[in-house]
């Protein structure tokens, strides 16, 4: 079986996962006790307004028709309008989503920039001073909640030192420097956990690879230390590191919701949260679906990359 067959199969699995997810998301709204339209409009609204909203939300149709209509809308870009301000959800997500992705990627880059050298330094001399320093950082980073770290960063750099803006968002198209300075604190607050997890992971992967028999064989055949590190240790250690990076991306997507609130960052996370507070069902549904789709897509890409890097995975 070649790579193409494997990819097609892997893709089918992703589609299946998305289908199940869509049913769950769809059910959330329908499972709220009582009539969603009544819940949104409040007990004082008159029956006519409720009925209008029910039609607008398709609630008068049988449940399977509601789902089919919704899915058809999702696929054609007709995502409904926000109940609060009547703006198309599609337009809202289109503005907010890239901002969140931007933040997530930035956090991940910070995670990689910290973990790659730190994990390598730690693993090259296990049980040395620098190894312990790296492990301490790793332990610290995993224990600190990101919102707390975010608040502390905000206080120190935003309020007391005043070197970074404490909240808000600037598009990199308008002012790249301001954009980065707005993003750096939330990204750091998020990326610290990733850096911590990835550092420890890379360290143990490298140590494991160094103990492998093929590394011993490479030494017995006189390869240079640099060659062994590059072609034998790192090549094989970075494959699982890549996979882990994909998993981390999923975590970052989850963390984005909280950190966006802390830093008043107008991304998809805040959109979903505001939607939840306002019972703005079309926004909740689509926001969640977009987040989950991103997660599934990232995992698909990771798995496909993994199968290129590691010839063994292909079947």
């Amino acid at each position: 079986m070649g790579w193409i067959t494997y990819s097609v199969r892997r893709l089918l699995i992703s589609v299946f996962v998305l289908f199940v997810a869509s049913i769950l998301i769809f059910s959330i709204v329908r499972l709220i006790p009582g009539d969603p339209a009544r819940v949104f409009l409040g007990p004082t609204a008159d029956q006519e307004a409720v009925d209008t909203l029910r039609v607008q939300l398709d609630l008068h149709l049988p449940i399977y028709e509601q789902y089919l209509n919704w899915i058809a809308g999702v696929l054609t870009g007709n995502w409904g309008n926000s109940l609060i301000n009547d703006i198309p959800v599609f337009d809202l997500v289109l503005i907010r989503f890239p901002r969140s992705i931007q933040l997530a990627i930035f956090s991940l880059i910070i995670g990689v920039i910290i973990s790659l050298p730190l994990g390598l330094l730690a693993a090259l001399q296990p049980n040395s001073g620098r190894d312990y320093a790296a492990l301490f950082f790793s332990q610290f980073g995993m224990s600190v909640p990101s919102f707390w770290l975010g608040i502390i960063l905000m206080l120190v750099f935003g309020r007391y030192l005043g070197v970074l803006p404490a909240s808000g968002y600037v598009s990199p198209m308008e002012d790249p420097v301001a954009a980065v300075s707005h993003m750096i604190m939330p990204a750091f607050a998020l990326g610290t956990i990733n850096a911590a997890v990835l550092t420890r992971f890379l360290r143990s992967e490298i140590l494991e690879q160094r103990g492998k028999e093929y590394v011993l064989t490479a030494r017995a055949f006189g390869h240079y230390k640099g060659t062994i590190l590059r072609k034998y240790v790192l090549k094989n250690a970075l494959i699982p590191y890549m996979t882990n990076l994909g998993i981390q991306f999923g975590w970052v997507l989850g963390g984005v919701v909280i950190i966006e609130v802390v830093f008043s960052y107008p991304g998809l996370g805040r959109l979903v949260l505001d939607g939840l507070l306002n019972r703005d069902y079309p926004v909740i549904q689509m926001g969640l679906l977009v987040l989950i789709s991103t997660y599934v897509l990232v995992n698909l890409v990771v798995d496909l990359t993994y199968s290129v890097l590691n010839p063994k995975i292909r079947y």
Partner: protein
Amino acid sequence: MSKKSILEVRDLHTQFETDSGVVKAVDGVSFSLQQGEIYGLVGESGAGKSVTGRSIMRLIDPPGNITDGTVRFNDENLLTLPMAEVRDIRGNEIAMIFQNAMAALNPGYTIGTQISDVLQRHKDFNDKQARERTIQLLSDVGIPDPEARFDSYPHQLSGGMCQRVVIAMALSCDPDIIIADEPTTALDVTIQAQILELLSDLRDNYGITVLLITHNMGVVASTCDRVGVMYAGEVVEEGPVQDIVAKPRHPYTMGLMQAVPRLNDARERLESIPGDMPNLLKTPNGCSFHPRCPYDAEDCRNVDPSLDPLSPDDRSTERRTACLRTDEIDFDREMAEMATEADGKEGSPKPKIPNRGRTDSDPLIEASNLQKYFDPESQSWLDRLIGEREYVHAVDDVSLDIYEGETLGLVGESGCGKTTLGRVLSHLYEPDAGTVVYAGTDLTELDRRKLKSMRGNIQMIFQDPVSSLNPRKSVYEIISRPLEIHQNIADEVARRERVEELLDSVGLKPEHASRKPHAFSGGQKQRIGIARALAVEPDFIVADEPVSALDVSIQAKIINLLMDLQEEFNLTYVFIAHDLNVVQHIADRIAVMYLGEIIECGDADDIFTPPHHPYTEMLLSSIPPLDPSAETDRIVPRGTPPSPIDPPSGCRFHTRCPRAMEECKSVVPADHQFGEDHTITCHLFDDDRDHAEINALIAEQEAYGVPKDQLVDSD
């Protein structure tokens, strides 16, 4: 007879500093390699053979340390050379190959790239030259279609193929010496024979000197020119291989030789060396072997014997031994006693050994048409859903009778389904089809409760004593657990008594009961596993490779124990093993398996003397003979077993069979009764083929010999 010495190891000491003290893994080893010979370094695990090999290459990592000695190669001491120069020698002038070839290759690169990398590291080759040379090397070591194989990844090749690739890598820079550390231990006998053949060819064709490190006396005897026997970090005896094997001059070497089960030996107790290899943290004073030596004297406990040449009047000056009493002990008589026993069997028509089990009664176990298929690992749930289902044909239509009190040996290459069959017989696996009737009860039809009560009668002993014992439980808890489950001995005192009784019957002491498994040696752990199996007083025990993880001297003791227990408790065994010598020694009847089918079954004597089925013959000739002078007309086995997912049509063995005929490719052979209780599944024994014809056929095959190109694996 003084050949040029190419590598000289003098007084080598390598130590490991551990929390509990200094382990002297290599403690003053000296030997030299002569140009173009295969020198065997043999000994049991922990003797320091591998550490010696690695010390020569300076591949000792902390906490290990080479503390003393010289390794002289090309007038230079490798142990004091700068590391950069050692790296230039590694792989270039001295190459090393390891036990597990699959793990020795980088999974992330193709085998071609890996060999080319070595070439380009040491030689001034461009990419194209390196590729050409690599393909040449792959073809030299007998890899079919080397051009295509260049781009294969290690996991796409079989274990035997990977070992060939590593050997090609070792050859790449025309080294003077190859150090081979247990190169065949992880391989089947049939593949082992092919690799040993290859190593001998390299010596003959390229004049390469080989240092062969192994624990297998048969490998040494059939391959090496000279041998050094190691014990507890020292070389205790050295000399030409035929002398070491036939005329040992050290009690340890003699003990080793006597402990090895041989084909055609009497089915009686094996000689074994008492005790275990000493703990290298604290080697005994004087001769390190004295606590286990039957000739132990006062001097031996105080004076550490040096490795000295035998007295000058002995015919060979190449012989050296480290025994104080070597002149006093009559080694030859001891060995001669063994030899006459064996000769008596081979020369005169062998007295038929009565089968212990076979009575006229009904069989204890009647298995009919058993089938067990597995899903291949590579198959995802999606494949199964879509319907492209494939199966591993682990056990395919196997019928078998086992009689009370007998031992049935089950042999075959790895992957032939012998372990699965053992587990189906003991009902650890439910068969997909067929029935297992145990003492008149059909196990496959029992409900769970009745099955549970039956389980007490059937027990298993596993291959790996380490992983089959729970490391967190004490020996008492391990052995008493089945007592709780099956026998309901609620009384704590009675249970403790029973455990002590069991420990005693497997040769352990009552005080061992409170210890955890890690405090025991490999042989002792296997004894615990046996005691656990015996706890519920079973009638039937399936022993799955119970001795293959053990050293020779320990193996002999466990085999003896199993045979004693059988007599004492009237047990019925199914003994699964890949080592034909061992099976032949313990079994009354033998069933030979190939790709999920039993292809031959009969009394042990009928199966091997002489072999009938071509596969049995191939297995048998794969065993390295213990007598180096024996020029046997060995059939060099061909190829590797095909995949059990898609077994060959007709006779499953036809792809590797040296006697394959046209009809074997398409027609499934029937079972033929051949003499009393001897079944053979082979077209050679079809009724319409008279025996004269068969004999003529066999003679013709033998005269023709096996063509050289059939040495090659065909997977």
